[in-house]
């Protein structure tokens, strides 16, 4: 990887160009249904368990922090409301993003990178098959779908974990916790979170595919590509998250 400014610009440019290619190849027939299902299953199978295992302590940490904060402020009745809000709006898209990039993206990047250095990608192009259409599009769609579903999973597990820690371990009142659920959070929060997850899924799959398809220099090159793809994806995801959150607050009126 070159460290010159033009090199960085060129890489950003080609990454963006590939994202456009993916969008252009999206409606092209025949749709690779088989590859899509295989990839969706694959990405789901590598992410579901870690996601569930990460979101339980994540929900618990939020519950602990908010439980103690609300007690300090004397607003215990809002413990449930605040914890749902935190899990739904930020925690679940971020956890989803980390896992979809860390578990799904790395697998995609390593797979495509290995195919690239074994000349499989070249062979495919020579056989008259566009790897963007055949390989990348199904992966991007699979990653988006799985991200949306994972986001739902994280929300549920996170809220349940929060309830468990607040009510059982911190002796909160179950009724008050449940009753305050909807005082701050609203349905549009969920939609916004799902939209974030959708975008995160797309970004992580596109970056992983780009890095995988441009891997070079043998097995070490694939390792480097995976490494870079995770770093780049994380940076992009956190920036995107910030922008989307800022836009969300401008567009959707808040309660209270």
């Amino acid at each position, binding site marked *: 990887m070159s460290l010159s400014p033009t090199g960085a610009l060129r890489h950003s440019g080609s990454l963006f160009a590939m994202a456009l290619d993916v969008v252009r190849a999206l409606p092209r027939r025949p749709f690779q249904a088989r590859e899509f299902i295989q990839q969706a299953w694959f990405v789901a199978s590598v992410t579901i368990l870690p996601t569930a295992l990460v979101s339980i302590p994540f929900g618990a940490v939020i519950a602990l922090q908010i439980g103690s904060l609300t007690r300090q402020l004397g607003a215990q009745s809002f413990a449930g409301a605040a914890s749902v809000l935190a899990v739904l709006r930020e925690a679940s898209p971020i956890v989803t993003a980390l896992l979809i990039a860390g578990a799904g993206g790395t697998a995609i990047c390593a797979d495509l990178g*290995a*195919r690239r250095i*074994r*000349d*499989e990608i*070249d*062979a*495919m*192009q*020579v*056989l*008259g*098959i*566009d790897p963007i259409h*055949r390989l990348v599009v199904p992966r991007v769609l699979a990653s988006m779908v799985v991200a949306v579903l994972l986001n739902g999973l994280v929300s549920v597990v996170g809220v349940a974990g929060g309830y468990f820690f607040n009510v059982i371990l911190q002796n909160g009142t179950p009724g008050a916790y449940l009753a305050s659920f909807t005082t701050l959070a609203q349905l549009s929060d969920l939609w916004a979170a799902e939209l974030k997850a959708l975008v995160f899924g797309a970004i992580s799959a596109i970056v992983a595919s780009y890095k995988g398809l441009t891997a070079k220099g043998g097995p070490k090159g694939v390792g480097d590509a995976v490494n870079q793809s995770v770093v780049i994806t994380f940076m992009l995801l956190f920036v995107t998250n910030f922008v989307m959150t800022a836009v969300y607050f401008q567009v959707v009126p808040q309660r209270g």
Partner: protein
Amino acid sequence: MGVEICVEGLTKSFGHQVIWQDVSLTLPAGEVSVMLGPSGTGKSVFLKTLVGLLRPDRGSVTVAGRDITRLREHELYEVRKLFGVLFQDGALFGSMNLYDNIAFPLREHTRKPEGEIRRIVLEKMDMVGLIGAEGKLPGEISGGMRKRAGLARALVLDPEIILFDEPDSGLDPVRVAYLNQLIVDLNAQIDATFLIVTHDIASARQVPDNIGLLFRRELVMFGPREQLLTSEEPVVRQFLNGRMQGPIGMAEEKDAAQVEQELAQLGEHHGSGEHTGTPGSQDLPPRLLPGPGITRPPRWQAIARREAEPRRREVTGA
């Protein structure tokens, strides 16, 4: 009948490093050509440029009336259906077994029923002698089998042009001989235009109609096999005889003074009449002909007649 490939003024560089420049040649339709060159002279790059995987800096590659270097991406995918390419390690899809690998282009490009796909795949597998290995994964078979499977996959769409990227690398001499025979047999059977990129001299001497030599960032010579094999050009002679003396060094980049010295050395060796003892390039090695089971098209019948003739003359002359 195969398709002619016309290359004109082709130049390729990566950054400031020129790979080769101003390469012009015509691969005649239906004939077997070999592109030779020391390691690292960009033979594979040349091959990838021919199929449009890499874009050259200048020049044109004309196939079936269309310039590969100027085509848009989707037109390129259409033209590439004329090509079959055998990559160095076969480039099989690691996740599929051999049968699915070979059936892949058919399933992607045609709407043939599975029964007909099966018939075609088994026919091509039979051609390359892989019957019985349909269910094997590429990781479970030897390098030679992977190459043959890659060849079967390249053949499955009935290409007009077949490109071989070092078909003999990593194979033992016996397998190389079998593969060469297979290439000749295939050429007699399907009549496509063949280009073989290699640095194996033995194959280059026996198999092709035409030989080209890439060296020092340019095409030193391209022409009929006889012309190259009897050439007095130092680079060509050195390479075809596999000697150390001559312009080609261990490292690709040699300075001019060293080349002078090498050439002088070569002259001395010539002066002492040493080269008469080595298997000289003057006597043409016999050409490899299609096997007995193969029906020879007119082109190969003519070659077989020409092959038989001078030998008879030699015998009567002596």
